Each structure stands twice: as structure tokens, then as C-alpha cells.
């Protein structure tokens, strides 16, 4: 088995790297893949909280590289899904505690018996970013439709494209608010894609459910009703190579609009069958 190592990065902080990592990881594991999530945000770890695994951590990535435990001992199994495990970051150290080479080694070892290794990257472009990217061959750049986040994403894409090891990088647009796009108060998806000239792997709508899911430590992909959860599940399917249409977020809220949408959808399906 040779697993794929995907780094999830953004440059800017607070755009949803960790939320994305937790959700895509959970969705991939739910689909039957063996997944390891690596938190490389040493000193400011959060991924364990989002997965609700904080109370299970005994060893961290720093213990692994410093030889206090074996890699296997440091992997924390998810509560719900045995296919998913977490390699937590140390909270009491800083980014210099691990090196690019060490992260590369860890990724290489994990590749052998896992389908996916998702690396949650810290904000910034310093050592933490360099470490996180070191072992990866694919990247997902998370951004929001805001000028500052896009500027930072552009910088990150530039850095990623200069790295030989990164074979492909995709854009994930997070916290999209269709009602604001409709009133021209937010950049549209097309605008962002054009600005960054990068392929899209997902569009995640703003969802208040994310807040409670984060606080509870239960990723939103576990909520079948949530639109954001659906969007993340679609991202996972796209990563696995399926062709999935982007969610229609601009769906009309009024009754006539809904009927119109329903007919359009049905006609499309009938056409596809013919």
C-alpha cells in the first residue's frame, strides 16, 4: 500500500485549515480508507480538540522524533472510526522541535499502511510550513473569499509550485456566503478561482453548525443534515477520484425557485439517462 500524503495549508490563520483537515480526514475514513491525520502546529495544537481526542493523547509527534516512543504508540485512534487516527502535536514545545527530514520520515513510514496521510499545516510560511510540506506530494490550499486570505493563498501557491515534491495543489474555498455574493458584498467563487488561477476541489458554505461541532469535538461530516458536512464529504469523494458536481449554494429560497430547481434537476437527470 502506498498512501497519498496531502498537506492542508493556507498561509493566513483562521480560514479553516484544521476544520478542513478534521472533516476531510473523517469523511475519507468513513468512506473506508485508512487515514492518519498529522497535526504539525506544534505549540498551538487544535486538531485533537476538533476530533474530541484531547483526553487520549499520551505521546506526540515530538516524542516520536525524540525517540521516547514508537510511531505506532503515538497514533491515537478516533472514537467513532477505527480507520482514522491522529498523530498529535506537542503543546509544550515549538516548531523547531521537529525538522523537515523527520516529518518526511514519518510520512514515508505511515504511507506503507495507510491510504491517506493528511498533514494539518500551521499558519505562516516559516519553519512550521516548511516542515508540514516536506513529506507531502499533494496540497490543498484553504482560503476564504476575502482579499487578505486570497493574497496569502497566492503566496502559498507560489511557494508550493516552486517545490518539486508537490505534484498537485488544489483550492478549497471556505466560508462562502451565497446571500452576500448575491448582493455583491462577497467575491464570487468564479472571481476567486480567476484571481488565484488554481483548480477548485471544494466550496464549503458558511455553517453555524461548525461552531458547535468544533466545541463538541465532533466533525460536521458526521452530521448528515449539514450542508457544510455534505460539501466536505464531496471534497473527500473528489480526492478519491470521483467526479462530483459542486453544490448549488445559490439555490433560491422561495417556493417557486425550489420548484424551478427541482424541475431543472429532473430534466438534467432524464437527459443524462437518455
Amino acid at each position: 500500500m502506498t498512501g497519498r500524503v496531502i498537506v492542508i495549508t493556507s498561509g493566513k490563520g483562521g480560514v479553516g485549515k484544521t476544520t478542513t483537515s478534521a472533516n476531510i480526514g473523517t469523511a475519507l475514513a468513513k468512506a473506508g480508507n485508512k487515514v492518519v491525520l498529522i497535526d504539525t502546529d506544534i505549540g498551538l495544537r487544535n486538531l485533537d480538540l476538533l476530533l474530541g481526542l484531547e483526553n487520549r493523547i499520551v505521546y506526540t509527534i515530538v516524542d516520536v522524533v525524540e525517540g521516547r516512543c514508537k510511531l505506532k504508540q503515538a497514533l491515537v485512534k478516533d472514537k467513532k472510526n477505527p480507520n482514522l487516527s491522529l498523530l498529535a502535536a506537542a503543546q509544550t514545545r515549538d516548531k523547531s522541535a521537529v525538522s523537515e527530514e523527520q516529518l518526511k520520515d514519518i510520512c514515508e513510514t505511515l504511507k506503507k499502511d495507510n491510504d491517506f496521510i493528511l498533514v494539518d499545516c500551521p499558519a505562516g510560511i516559516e519553519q512550521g510550513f516548511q516542515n508540514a510540506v516536506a513529506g507531502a506530494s499533494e496540497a490543498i490550499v484553504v482560503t476564504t473569499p476575502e482579499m487578505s486570505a486570497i493574497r496569502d493563498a497566492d503566496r502559498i501557491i507560489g511557494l508550493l509550485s516552486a517545490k518539486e515534491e508537490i505534484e498537485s495543489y488544489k483550492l478549497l474555498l471556505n466560508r462562502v456566503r451565497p446571500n452576500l455574493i448575491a448582493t455583491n458584498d462577497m467575491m464570487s467563487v468564479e472571481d476567486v478561482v480567476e484571481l488565484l488561477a488554481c483548480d477548485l476541489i471544494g466550496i464549503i458554505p458558511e455553517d453555524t453548525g461548525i461552531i458547535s461541532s468544533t466545541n463538541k469535538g465532533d466533525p460536521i461530516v458526521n452530521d448528515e443534515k449539514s450542508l457544510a458536512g455534505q460539501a466536505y464529504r464531496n471534497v473527500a469523494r473528489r480526492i478519491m477520484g470521483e467526479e462530483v458536481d459542486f453544490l448549488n449554494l445559490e439555490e433560491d429560497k422561495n417556493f417557486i425557485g425550489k420548484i424551478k430547481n427541482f424541475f431543472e434537476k429532473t430534466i438534467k437527470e432524464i437527459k443524462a439517462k437518455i
Partner: protein
Amino acid sequence: MDNNSIENGFIVDLSNTKNTSQLIYELSSILDLPEARNKKICLKLGDTDLNQSQLLSIKALIESMQGEIGMIDTASVQTKAAAENLSILVTELKSEVEAEQTVTPEEIDKVLGIVTTIDGDDETHKENIPLTPIADFSEVAEAGGLILNGDSKYVMMDTTGILPDEQKNHEENPESLPTLYLNRTLRSGQTLSYDGNIFIVGDAHPGSEIIAKGDITVWGILGGIAHAGAQGNVNAKVRALKLNAIQLRIAGLYARRNDTYNVPYVQKSNEFTPEVAVLENNSIVIYKKLRRDE
């Protein structure tokens, strides 16, 4: 005669001088030293009585030697009053013996900043200790007739395959160990590690780690990880006014906070019940009140 350089000044110890003339003689000879130049002079006067005019002449003497009088340490009421009249700072300087016994803030910062790992030396991790995952403490409660935490706030962790198989356990009395006393908040990412007991007046926030060879006592909310008896002392205990630790570790046994146990965002201090975690029958047991022998 003893003098010490301190950060912002120069201590001159004159507490052993018998009269004013001897005092002035000693002082002038010390002020002659090159290291005393352009410094704030701190005078240790012991119980020598000085009046205002004598003190004024001492001040003039120091100023004539390119010095400046910083403060005065005195046990004499007369000297103190005289100094205050001349608006000279009067301070109680710590004696050297006291200074040696007190852990300075710099030392504490050092302890907080640096993770002192208890290395799994060949000596420390030997002899088998069975790790039995027990979730229910009620049996123990009935046997001992003791007050227990009924809400099963903690579950034992099955650390088989995670922790080293063997650990050498011992039953040292934690009371025989030295105690680090700390009056501050321990924040996320800070590790406090000490070869003895740790006593914190303040909260230990989630994300912090306290590792002690002996007991851990937190006069506040314990929210991080606490490892008492980290070198295998099965008699070690963890005490807190509010025991919310994400993980409790005593010797080689680990317990994690139950997933279903909800910790409110903010806790009111009037809801606090002192709790203590101890090792009993290879399980970590939490008592809501301290037992009489505690």
C-alpha cells in the same frame, strides 16, 4: 565584612560595626574600591542607631566618592526615621540564608519554560504492574465505605502497547520530598516538572502539564494534565479544588476524562468541592472530600 554586587547597585554590609567612626572608616575604605564607583549604594546597617546629621554626613561621603545612596537596610527605629526624613528608601533586604531557600522567579521561569523529561531510565521502568481498565469505582466505594465521585468523570485508559510494559513502583512517602510552592496561573503549553511535590495557588489551564515526583496540589481549577508520582510512586496523589484534568496520571496508571463529561466554559468558585485522586486496586479513584488521614 561582606559585600555583594547586585543588579542595580552595590551592597555594603556595615551591620557588624560597633560605632559611627568605625562605620565611616569601613564605608570609606569600601567606597574606594573601583567596583563601587557610580553605583547605587545599599547600606546594611544592622541595629546601629544613627541620627539625621550622622546619616547626612554618610550620604555626603558617598556622594563625594561619585556614588549615590540607594537604600538602607536597618533594624533600628531611630535610623529608619532619620532615613525617612532624608527621603532615603528603607527596605528589608533578604538575608542570604533566606535567599538560598527561596526559589527565585527566574528559576521558576526556567522550570516552566523547559520540559524536564523524566527519562525512562533502565532503573525507573521495571517490574510489572497490571493495567486493568476499570470504569466503575462503585465496588471500591462499597468496600471502603468512602465518598466517591459518582458521575464517573474519569475512565481508566488501556495503556497496553502505549506505555512501556514495566515500571518500577515504590511506596515512598511523598511527605519526605521537597515541595515547590508556586503562586501563579499555569497556562496552555507550560510544563511544570519537579523532583518533589508541587503546590500551585492558582489554576492550571487546559494544555498545561504538571509532572511531579510526589504529590500535586492545585488550589484552583486543574484543567491540564497532572502526573503525580511520575517516577513510580504509587502513594502520590493529585488534589485540586476543582479536578477537571484532561488526564490524570499516577505512577504508571493513566485515566482520561470521560467523553460524556461536560466541563462548563466558565466555572463558579462556589461550586468547588475539593477532590483528591489516589491509586487504589490498580485504578485511579477520586474522592470528593479529603479523608481524615489526608
